């Protein structure tokens, strides 16, 4: 058992539907410490998981829970003896936080467009292997700090239209 009993998360990772890493963090110096090992592991993991959506797999001595949506795959890794349900709770937090940040449109394009916020979310969920927060709403509250009203001059045409459409929709719904 780990010295602290707190270093539960060995890694978190987001991949696209070709198995390319979008974001990945490994927290244990002794596990997958080199880039080469990490890439090999990710490739293997992706090959084993992208076709079957079955939530959990044991690979190279790590328990990996995963989830996919449209063109993204989310993974949380812990050691083979870890309580799988704890890992699952962290995975759910990661996914739900991103879903909240992206207003339910969890797809690669939007993840990349909001990468800075996603990076902050990663950092708020897990600090060096310790679960920092597992409640999506509180994670999002801490990271989604973007100023909602962008000066109109800096908005793109599409954004103006989009916001106009939204406002119209709400006014009709009322």
């Amino acid at each position, binding site marked *: 058992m780990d010295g602290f009993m707190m270093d539960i998360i060995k890694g978190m990772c987001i991949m696209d539907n070709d198995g390319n890493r979008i974001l990945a963090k490994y927290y244990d110096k002794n596990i997958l410490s080199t880039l080469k090992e990490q890439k090999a592991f990710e490739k293997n993991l992706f090959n084993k998981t992208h076709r079957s959506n079955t939530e959990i797999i*044991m690979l190279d001595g790590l328990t990996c*829970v995963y989830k996919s949506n449209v063109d993204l795959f989310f993974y949380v890794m812990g050691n*083979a003896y870890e309580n*799988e*349900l*704890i890992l699952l*709770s962290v995975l759910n937090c990661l996914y739900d936080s991103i879903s909240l940040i992206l207003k339910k449109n969890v797809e690669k394009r939007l993840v990349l*467009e909001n990468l800075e916020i996603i990076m902050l979310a990663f950092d708020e969920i897990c*600090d060096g292997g310790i679960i920092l*927060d597992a409640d999506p709403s509180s994670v999002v509250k801490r990271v989604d700090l973007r100023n909602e009203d962008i000066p109109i001059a800096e908005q793109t045409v599409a954004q103006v239209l989009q916001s106009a459409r939204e406002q119209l929709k709400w006014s009709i719904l009322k």
Partner: protein
Amino acid sequence: MGSFRRDKDEEEDGPTNAYQNLEKTSVLQETRTFNETPVNARKCIHILTKILYLINQGEVLVAREATDCFFAMTKLFQSKDVVLRRMVYLGIKELSSIAEDVIIVTSSLTKDMTGKEDLYRAAAIRALCSITDHTMLQAVERYMKQCIVDKNAAVSCAALVSSLRLASTAGDVVKRWANEAQEAMNSDNIMVQYHALGLLYHIRKSDRLAVSKLVNKLTRGSLKSPYAVCMLIRIACKLIEEEDVPAEELADSPLYSFIESCLRHKSEMVIYEAAHAIVNLKNTNPRMLSPAFSILQLFCGSPKATLRFAAVRTLNKVAMTHPAAVTTCNLDLEGLITDSNRSVATLAITTLLKTGAESSVERLMKQISTFVAEISDEFKVVVVQAICALCAKYPRKHTVLMNFLSGMLREEGGLEYKTSIVDTIITIIEENVDAKESGLSHLCEFIEDCEHVSLAVRILHLLGKEGPFAATPSKYIRFIYNRVILESPIVRAAAVTALAQFGASCPALLANILVLLGRCQMDPDDEVRDRATYYLCILNSAKPELYKNYIIERENCSLALLEKALSDHLNGDLESHFDISIVPKAAIVKPEINNDVMMVTSAPRAPKITREEESAARLAQLPGIQVLGPIHRSTSPIQLTESETEYTVQCIKHIFAQHVVFQFDCLNTLSDQFLENVRVDLTLPEGYTARAVIPCPKLPYNELQTTFVIVEFPPDASSSIATFGATLRFVVKDCDPNTGEPDSEEGYDDEYMLEDLEITVADQIQKTKKNNFQVAWDAADSEEWLQAEDTFVLSAVSNLQDAVNTIIKILGLGAANLSEKVPEGTHLHTVLCSGAFRGGVEVLVRAKLALSEGVTLNLTVRSTDQDVAELITAAIG
């Protein structure tokens, strides 16, 4: 609609992603933008994100680049943009390990950490701790204490988690924060509770009483965080295991009642943790286990894959310790065999195989065969391993299992999968005499159509070893000779060697073999021709002792050490002949059977090295060690102190032809002492001469260091069995526990009594394994060999198996022909074993045992050295 915000340049690129084709140098160039005033927050955020993205993709920044980037980043503290500031913190954390002079941002971070903006504070603390070292910690200690008890949960969490990180480097400072952590425990926020428990436990974990107080208090109160409860369960288990409470008392202990009560918790995570904990406890009785198993059984039927996985993995792990209880879940496990999650299915099968009764083997195998074609190779390997374990358990079922395996062998599959099947069949053949014939014929059929060279070679080797002693050896010749005609040179060479084995061991077949070998001399490959000529030459000589030495019993040297010995020989004077008998034999390494969680892994296994090879590399660094010659054997380590004393010492004996090197691994467990000139003083028994003492110059706290003593054996082997008194001597200097620096130059001499050391017969003997003991034994009935014989009554043992085990242990020999296993229900048994005494003296032992009141033993020892033969007979008495 912030989520739809895009950068200008990105718009031009259309929908492609802004992070494709990033160039490290050009991105780093862009950091110049950071110097502009006023700071353009959005642009800078984007650049920072690109840098972090590159690092995350594995791009490596050298110290210079990282430092430049880091200093450019410090300019961004001017901006008040929240996201930008937070990205700067992330950047600081990422770069702190590569860049230099990172402490420059300490004051900025300290300001943010103590400031009013809550959105900064928590993240600033974590960034600060990533750049803080031991010396600077004193300066921020006051703030850290305040933050731990801060009303804002995020700030408190950040401070607690950072303290845990710091505890590994600055444990003594963090220890002083226990009161604050205690206060944080009372927080309403569940994460604060969890992190506070983590920190408190870490601070107190070396103090058993304090931990037990902490746990007792918390088990009564109600922790709200499920994570904290899970952790508390783990701590409680640790306490229970350490106390080693017997089952009857355990049921009433408050710790156990707490874990038991967690089975009714509202969070599944906690319920599972508790069930998992209970089934893994050492001292339990069925009544205590049953609720936990009911929970696991319930989880087996859950619609969530993770729950099913968790349950079946736990059942798999305890299948060996609580077979009866696991059997109650068999129905549920059988339902999981066809689970859509292959990890779950495989764990279910292997669990069933582990617990399966002898009668259900057939049914299970039928079930497995229905889906084995569908699963991936790795899972098949796991299934094969489980079958292997089953074979060992029910030897009588070998026909069913062997047929199943050979069926699997015929299917498509990769090398790893095929290797595991062949390994299993070989294991069965080696351990079960009845299965030998059928196993060999399955393997013969397999090599007829085998694309893997390594497997074909292994099987041919096995055929050569086992085939000559089968009922009809001639039937294997056809299979082997087919290889000579059809295969690649490597396989052909192996086949030639196998043929020669038959020629040497079956006189009836010799004439035919000579013809076949003659044909092999025409082979286009050099190696094959050479081997054929070599064997023909020996077989034509018609001298049984040549057969024995050069065909049947080939020297099984440790290759690494043989290489070393040869290169030493080449570097020395080339006057004398190279003597292969002094190279240590490759120790017979038994592969460890992993009965633990059946792991599915694709990582290559590390090559096995024997203890001798390991120590040869280590000892080679000692000055003057070459004079002693090559190493003969290294013993496994022996503790010379109780564990948890001031100093712990363990000893490994390295035996050479005429010398013994004692290696003492010393550990100083006192943090306020610094030891110098550490050495072990041995009281030598008569006959032994001290040759050298190699002290260890410095032994700081908690570092394993080694000192050696070299002693020469007495000239006559009979007085080599002796006991050594041992004392650890050293110079003590008091030191500061925090820095490890000695307080003064002055130290004083001190000593510490160690337990006595022994040199036994077994220490001096390296096991060997004879493929054909009888041939070796008969060949030893000649002039050069000497024999000693004696009869003993062993009163201490009551059955034959115990007697056999004792003899093999005392003598340290390797048993041949599976004679170390006593068949059940017999009164007479013969053990055949062999070994090499130091100096390369061969030893053969035949021990006849008879069970009457006690066990009567008739021991015959044959050796090339009279002293050694007598020594061995004396060792039993």
